[in-house]
């Protein structure tokens, strides 16, 4: 799920940037540092939408670096247990398949895949129903439900299922007809 929240961070700036465009340089550095990262608590920071406040800079002793506390608004993404997501299949394995929903990786193990789908090895390993109507392979879009999340300090990993109603393949990569 996406959230729009205010976060704070201390940015260190090298003295070479102390000039008329100090603020711009600061914001640029913030974006470079923060966007795309993940914190266990807030989730993945997708984009910074604005800078709220920049506090007074503090000169560090010994080095000439200056630390600015910056408050900024950003969009974060955090998956929750029970959430339904669409994801793109990245790898199919005998033990299940891996899918990505943006920055988060989800693993669907084979016992959470409906029993009528069987694994088929090959150069394009996939899961197929017995009548061949539904096929899960690389680059498929699937709708899945998050069963559990594991949150490290800088990483979030999920387990998903497609065994419930309305879950499973949405569209095929081989867009037939």
């Amino acid at each position: 799920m996406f959230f729009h929240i205010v976060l704070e961070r201390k940015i260190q700036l090298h003295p070479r940037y102390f000039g008329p465009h100090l603020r711009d340089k600061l914001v640029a550095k913030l974006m470079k540092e923060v966007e795309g990262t993940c914190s266990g608590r807030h989730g993945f920071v997708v984009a910074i939408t604005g800078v709220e406040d920049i506090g007074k800079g503090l000169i560090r002793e010994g080095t000439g670096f200056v630390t600015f506390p910056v408050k900024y608004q950003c969009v974060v993404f955090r998956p929750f247990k029970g959430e339904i997501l669409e994801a793109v299949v990245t790898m199919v394995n005998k033990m299940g398949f891996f899918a990505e929903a943006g920055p988060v990786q989800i693993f669907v193990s084979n016992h959470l895949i409906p029993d009528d789908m069987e694994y088929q090895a090959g150069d394009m390993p996939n899961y197929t129903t017995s009548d061949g109507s539904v096929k899960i392979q690389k680059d498929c879009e699937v709708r899945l439900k998050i069963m559990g999340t594991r949150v490290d300090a800088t990483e979030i990993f999920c387990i998903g299922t497609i065994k419930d109603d309305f879950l499973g393949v949405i569209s095929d990569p081989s867009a037939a007809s």
Partner: protein
Amino acid sequence: MSLEPFNRLVKLAARAFYDDITMKGDNQPKTGRGDNRGIAVVVLDALARRQWVREEDLAKALKLHSKQLRRILRFFEEEKFVTRDHRKESAKGAKIFSAAVAAATGEGHQTGKEGEEKVKMHTHSYCCLDYAQIYDVVRYRIHKMKKKLKDELDSRNTVQTYVCPNCGKRYSAFDALQLISFTDDVFHCERCDGELVAESDKLAADEMGDGDDNRSRRREKLKDLLKRIEEQLNPLTTQLSRVKDLPVPDFGTLQQWEARASAAARGYGEIDPNDANKSSQVPGYGGTPMPSLGDTKVEVDLGGGVKEEAQPEGKPVKAKVLPPWMIKEGMVLTKEQRGETSIEADASQETTIDDKKQTDMMDDKSLKDEYYKAYYDAYRAKLQETQAIKQEVRVSASDDLFGTTESSHRQVGMKSKRGHDDNDDVEWEDDQPTVDTGNAGTSYKLAADLNMEAKESEEEEDDDIDWEEG
């Protein structure tokens, strides 16, 4: 307090869940002389018939080895069916416990043994059924059983675990990222690179392979299991619902129970100060006997019987009829214990203070006979000592006499001792010589006199004298 439905619950639960528990260790041959399946049921049934019981006693009663019994009890302690208490006590303390048990079950009476004072502390273990927990535990167990099946049915088992057959390391599905290998499409162990095996906890998954019919077969199996659970546990569940609204029998901790039981034992008429003193000397006993007797509050109903409050639940409150060979001379027993009439209340004896605690309703004559006999014996002794001052003798005699004999047997509404005193002064002096000479004759005579005296005074002074009774 209703033990019966709870005992039935315990028995049903024992037979439902524990009837094939065998207590032999795994390294012992099970088939040699037969293993002891179902022994757990026997133990639970025995515990249902008792309250707090010493484990050695239980072992003896059940003819089990105490080690085996201990193993079984440990098992049940872990299952939360039984509470255990281990405490160090000397042999005396153990005797007190036996007495308490006897009182609780209404059999026998304490053997007061003035033993030698070698205070060796052994650890005695006691156990008791914990009804409140049993109720909860049984409900929880059934709930978990059904939930497991339902989850299986709804395919709600979530996180898969993988085990490496080589090194036995376990992984969860969350670690799947680190386990993928690019060579083949199976997970490999991080350490030994062995192929991981998915661990399935499916109850009905004993067939290999997937398939349409397999899935439906599994569902059928699960549904069938669920149905069978319902019908086989039906008597247990009905008993649970019956018991749901009843107050749970609670025996308290070992100390509390023992205190109550020994108080009741004393109350039932065996007033043996020796025992009381002895038990109060026992170290580590918690000083239960005499001081705790103050716990039992007594409420007096003028013109009626006496109700003793704080009657603990779960205690059979009837004094048993003592067999004739048990009735010794000088034992002040209630009529009930002599097998004559039935009484309703307990007696508590506070012999230290001149409390006028009323206890039973008793028959006039026999009470008085006994009372006066003892009274005069002691009085004689006293007279021989202090013959100087009439009043002193009178007062102190009355105090002492009444103090040393059991004070508790007076009838409600009857004149109290003081009244007797006032009226009987003259008589005593007159009777002095005769008292010295003959025992039986005089005492009866005196008793008769006093009886009459008492009756007279009763009529006269009933209204005037307001003795606080309690």
